[in-house]
């Protein structure tokens, strides 16, 4: 009887997940677990887990350092992209995934994002966008929405003072050469997110160019929202500024 219950309750985890340290340490309602599930499933479907090298940033993404059953390394804040670049340039057969938050991608790491994009580095960047700096207590991020309250914008983000939210994938798409794959998914649509990540990895394996996926994600801890308003913010408010879909796709052969 007990073992039957266990079999029913056991969540299905991707093979490329590290089963030994689950359940994971992310906050309840955090989107990271979902993004990593999409990534794990994509790795499984491609059968590449022994060839993947996974780099994570600082911030909440650092908790992913031993999340997957793949070779992984922590790096520094904003420096995951160059570390993965160094690895890919050393051993091009490896599938290098640079996993970071919106700060790592668009603030401290922005010069690396821009230059990796311009060079069309054959790596896969996954930027988890939850409109704030979670680990450090919920400060403003480049992706914070206008009027959104954070620890460093307690009265709401003033775009006159601090600019508009950064649209990372659009910026990357604008500067990448042909061969890049750029998309924005959301943890509100897991099948689509997994498809985008899978295509991103395939793009790297085919050696066409950089692949960049932003994943709209949730942070109820710092948003101070309940389950219902968390999903509402993700699905209604965030999509006002961050359209979901594929933004740049390499031309098909022969086109």
């Amino acid at each position, binding site marked *: 009887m007990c073992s039957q219950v266990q079999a029913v309750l056991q969540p299905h985890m991707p093979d490329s997940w590290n089963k030994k340290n689950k359940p994971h340490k992310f906050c309840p309602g955090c989107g990271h677990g979902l993004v990593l599930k999409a990534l794990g499933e994509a790795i499984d479907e491609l059968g590449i887990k022994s060839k993947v090298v996974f780099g994570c940033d600082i911030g909440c993404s650092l908790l992913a350092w031993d999340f997957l059953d793949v*070779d*992984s390394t922590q790096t520094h804040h904003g420096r995951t992209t160059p570390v993965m*670049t*160094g*690895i890919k*340039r*050393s051993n091009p057969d490896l599938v290098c995934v640079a996993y970071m938050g919106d700060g790592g991608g668009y603030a401290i790491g922005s010069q690396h994002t821009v*230059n990796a994009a311009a060079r069309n580095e054959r790596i896969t960047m996954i930027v988890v966008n939850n409109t704030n700096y979670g680990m450090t207590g919920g400060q403003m991020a480049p992706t914070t929405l206008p009027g959104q309250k954070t620890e460093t914008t307690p009265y709401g983000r003033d775009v006159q003072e601090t600019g508009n939210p950064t649209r990372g994938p659009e910026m990357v798409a604008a500067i990448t050469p042909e061969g890049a794959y750029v998309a924005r998914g959301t943890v509100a649509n897991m099948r689509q997110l997994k498809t985008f990540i899978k295509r991103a990895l395939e793009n790297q394996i085919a050696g066409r160019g950089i692949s960049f996926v932003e994943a709209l994600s949730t942070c109820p801890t710092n948003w101070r929202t309940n389950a219902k308003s968390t999903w509402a913010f993700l699905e209604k408010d965030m999509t006002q500024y961050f359209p979901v879909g594929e933004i740049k796709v390499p031309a098909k052969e022969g086109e």
Partner: protein
Amino acid sequence: MTGNEVVAWAALAAGAEIMFGYPITPQNEIMHYWTRLAPKYNRKFLQTEDEISAGFTTCGAIQAGRKAFTATAGPGNVLMQEPFGMAEAMRLPMLAIIQQRGGPSSGTVVYSQQEVTLTTYGGNGEGHRIVYSTANHQELYDYVIKGFNTAWKYRFPTFVLGDGYQAKMREPMTMYDPAERGIEMVAPQPLIGLPGQIGKDREAQHLCNIYSLEEELYDVVQRFDAEYRQMAPMIEEHQQLHCEDAEVLVIAHGVVSRAALDAVEILQAEGKKVGWFRPITLRPFPHAALEKAAARASQLLVVESAMGQLARLVKEELFMQCRPIQGLYRPAVGIMADEVVAKLRTMI
């Protein structure tokens, strides 16, 4: 050849596989020569968007098991302290060539010995690094080769500390293939991206670089320190002359040690008891050798193209021996033998 060219050839001879770098005077020619040599010898290169990236791409390449190196100077050295810190923390066999220029900040593009503190103890760590201070082109060659071996054997970030004069000047030297001289090059090993199937041939490698509890980090730092101290006697290097009966001991490193030696010889020829001590490794500092060399001297003179950065290291090493220490400090300016002679005459 210029010093920078020598460095490029030495890296080639040492079997370096990939270089990452960003332009900053006076080390640019290291990249110029490397990029010309690289395709002929099947080596790689990437010019990154800045020094931070140059350092981190080098870290990544080392994690992937490649013999990688970088080079920088001045403000670039400041930026690279971040990736050097990662190398210290994750015990990555990093080799970086530093060609010191005037500081602080943009200073001059020319020369100084003002990056001693930065290179020996930069970053937010405990200075678990190896620093070789070269004085001539032959040493640039020798210590780049040795630096790779030291780094890959002991896994502490290793630096060859030159300067803008060494970088740009021409002087004679002899190149060689390490194998010809019986020098065996340590083979690099990957930390991630290992061959084999996860689950079947091997486990997944998870490299951690942040700790939740203070005690965890304490244990790590203590362990690194113990390994560092154990290694130190095997790699400390120095040169000395006329120390046994010296009344005044002159201490200098790098290119300045040449002028210091000339000065000491001039005074020795006059029968004056002046000694010369030159640390080659600034980290780990040749502590025992300095204690012994300074034992009989009643005064010390530290000569450097900085404002006491070498002196600070010396004072730490000679803490238990109270001794008046004077400094001939010429931050960012070359030092000639006659200046040292003039200063010594006031001390004898």
